[in-house]
């Protein structure tokens, strides 16, 4: 039976639980959140039933297919859902939790399916449910930012659908796998996926929408959308060289915009773009080593970014703001556990030895070097060093230690609710931080889950020394420039300016121009000279029969016009060689 087989698919189970989750009584919701993700994780790793297929519209769809890459991503997504929703239990709305389950179900579904149509279904579901999560943030700008987010993602979905349609129409296989370069289908699908990865020129949506979510909402958002895109890129576009410049742009964009940012959660959002850019470069190079590295680093990144965002979430819950200038400076001694977790996460993001990205980022870098991409290697080296300027150094500094800019901020810090989180939320944060360290200490456990055989050894004297040098220089530079780069109360223009200002202004200009010219032409038509000269005015004037769109007579006139033109066209078309429309349309 197919319907029972569906319950073997973790994504479907999550979606089916997510829909009614918001309506369950609190105790039931709580127990589902605590138990379901670990159970599904166990199920994924022990499942041996083989692929699940269905036939839809004559296409064979593969709803479940366990590949090593997919399993790796799905597992870390499942952990992210679990930890994120444990963290969220404290104050997230039921709707947010339900949406998060659907959202994660979509992401996990994509990792474990093996055809483009199923992928597209999950893809749209992710766009809709993640928009709901943004809206659940209920901040001042959440609604509009969510709308921008939704519009961009639906447009991306349209590109993806057109691409998949073209793939099917060309008779190509709809199986999820490496696409042959070239053709509409290839580029449309790539565009649709890249949009979700935060590629230019739409990179702004990450920092625009994510920080508008609730403290826990952003934890979910950071884990799934961009990393799912990375997964699809690894599967279908490995070795697509066009990804290299795009990735480089994103990596540098992420650093620069994070540096100009004052809101610590937006800094982390830009840091996501930066890291995804790093992964895109690795996918674009496409050797087994860099692909391994991209996957490993995606796992590491999801984990440490989650910990950092939970830390930022704790601050936001306590103080109600995440603007660096209003944080009050000495938060670290009010919340020791949070501080510890943030520091671990930050260390992991920078690639300090014995933390997660030390063992993952270096796989990418060495892979780049082996592939002979000297220039790209240099750029990526710099990018990984400059992480100190966003997630690694600057974020914890601004969040916990930096001296305050306003006196009002310090009084907020003394409020009684500025403390560490308790219970499950603390557990979730600690679990994330612990994983960052475990991966750092036991890299082989992660490497063994990678699809290509990994022979890389991170802990050599040379490598450690290399990383220490990089961090030392970058750290020193950060420390020296920290005051210059202290954020001002401002925003930075991005390409969303075109969406939010330029288009609106053009529209206003256009519509006002249209109104004036319309008024002018009416004036001209109704002027007395015109009226006396033109008999035809009776029919065509502003109140004439032709202009009165609602009048029965004018509709009837349309009928006559259509009839006449149809008769003429049909007669002309019937004459061979005189097929007017065919010639007009160029067919």
């Amino acid at each position, binding site marked *: 039976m197919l319907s029972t087989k569906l319950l073997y698919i973790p994504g479907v189970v999550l979606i089916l639980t997510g829909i009614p989750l918001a309506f369950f009584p609190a105790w039931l919701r709580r127990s589902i959140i605590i138990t379901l993700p670990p159970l599904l994780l166990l199920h994924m790793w022990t499942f041996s039933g083989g692929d699940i297929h269905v036939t839809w519209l004559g296409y064979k769809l593969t709803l479940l297919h366990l590949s090593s890459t997919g399993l790796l991503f799905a597992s870390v997504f499942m952990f992210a859902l679990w930890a994120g929703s444990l963290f969220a239990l404290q104050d997230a709305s039921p709707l947010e939790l339900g949406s998060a389950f659907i959202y994660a179900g979509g992401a996990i579904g994509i990792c474990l399916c093996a055809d483009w149509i199923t992928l597209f279904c999950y893809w749209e579901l992710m766009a809709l449910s993640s928009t709901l999560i943004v809206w659940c943030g209920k901040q001042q700008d959440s609604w509009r930012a969510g709308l921008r987010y939704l519009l961009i993602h639906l447009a991306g979905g349209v590109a993806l659908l057109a691409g998949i349609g073209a793939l099917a129409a060309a008779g190509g296989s709809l199986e999820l796998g490496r696409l042959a370069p070239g053709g509409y289908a290839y580029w449309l699908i790539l565009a649709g996926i890249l949009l979700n990865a935060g590629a230019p020129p739409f990179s702004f949506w990450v920092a625009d929408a994510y920080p508008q979510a609730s403290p826990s909402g952003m934890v979910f958002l950071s884990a799934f959308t961009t990393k799912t895109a990375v997964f699809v890129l690894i599967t279908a576009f490995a070795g697509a060289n066009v990804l290299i410049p795009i990735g480089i742009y994103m990596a540098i964009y992420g650093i620069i915009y994070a540096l100009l940012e004052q809101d610590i959660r937006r800094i982390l959002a830009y840091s996501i773009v930066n890291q995804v850019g790093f992964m895109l470069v690795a996918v674009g190079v496409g050797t087994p080593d860099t692909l391994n590295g991209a996957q490993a680093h995606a796992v590491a990144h999801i984990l440490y970014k989650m910990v950092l965002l939970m830390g930022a979430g704790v601050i936001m819950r306590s103080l109600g703001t995440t603007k660096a200038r209003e944080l009050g400076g000495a938060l670290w001694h009010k919340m020791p556990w949070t501080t510890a977790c943030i520091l671990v996460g930050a260390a992991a993001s920078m690639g300090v030895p014995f933390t997660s990205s030390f063992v993952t980022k270096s796989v990418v870098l060495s892979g780049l*070097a082996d592939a002979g991409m000297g220039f790209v290697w240099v750029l990526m080296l710099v990018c990984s060093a400059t992480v100190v300027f966003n997630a690694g150094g600057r974020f914890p500094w601004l969040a916990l230690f930096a001296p305050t800019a306003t006196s009002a901020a310090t009084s907020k810090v003394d409020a009684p609710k500025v403390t560490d989180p308790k219970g499950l939320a603390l557990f979730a944060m600690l679990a994330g931080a612990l994983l960052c360290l475990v991966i750092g200490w036991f890299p082989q456990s992660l490497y063994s889950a990678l699809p290509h055989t990994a022979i890389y050894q991170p802990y050599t004297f040379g490598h450690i020394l290399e990383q220490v040098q990089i961090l030392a220089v970058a750290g020193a530079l950060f420390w020296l420039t920290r005051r*210059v780069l202290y954020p001002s109360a*401002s925003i930075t223009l991005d390409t969303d300016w075109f969406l939010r200002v330029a288009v609106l202004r053009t529209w206003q200009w256009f519509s006002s121009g249209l109104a004036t010219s319309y008024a002018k032409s009416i004036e001209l038509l109704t002027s007395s000279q015109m009226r006396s000269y033109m008999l035809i005015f009776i029919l065509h004037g502003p109140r004439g029969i032709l202009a009165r769109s609602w009048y029965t007579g004018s509709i009837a006139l349309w009928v006559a016009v259509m009839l006449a033109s149809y008769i003429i066209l049909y007669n002309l078309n019937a004459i061979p060689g005189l097929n007017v429309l065919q010639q007009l349309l160029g067919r």
Partner: protein
Amino acid sequence: MRAPISSAKDSVIVSKTTSRLLWIVLSMLLLGADLIWTPHAPVSHLPQIGIYMLITLTGTVVVLGVTLGLRRLLQRGEDYYAEH
């Protein structure tokens, strides 16, 4: 509307710290001379004199420079979008 950005006092600090920084880094380069050995790096055929430091330093300084330049160009007051 353009928001107030870095003051004149800030820029004085930049020039001072930058010069101080250059000295520090140069001395570190000398200290790290010939200590580095990594088979992977495309720079492994170069003399291994603090090459990672050099790359990091140049790269980071360039990024910071670009950032400061963009700051002048792109930063606006917080209520920019509310006004438009």
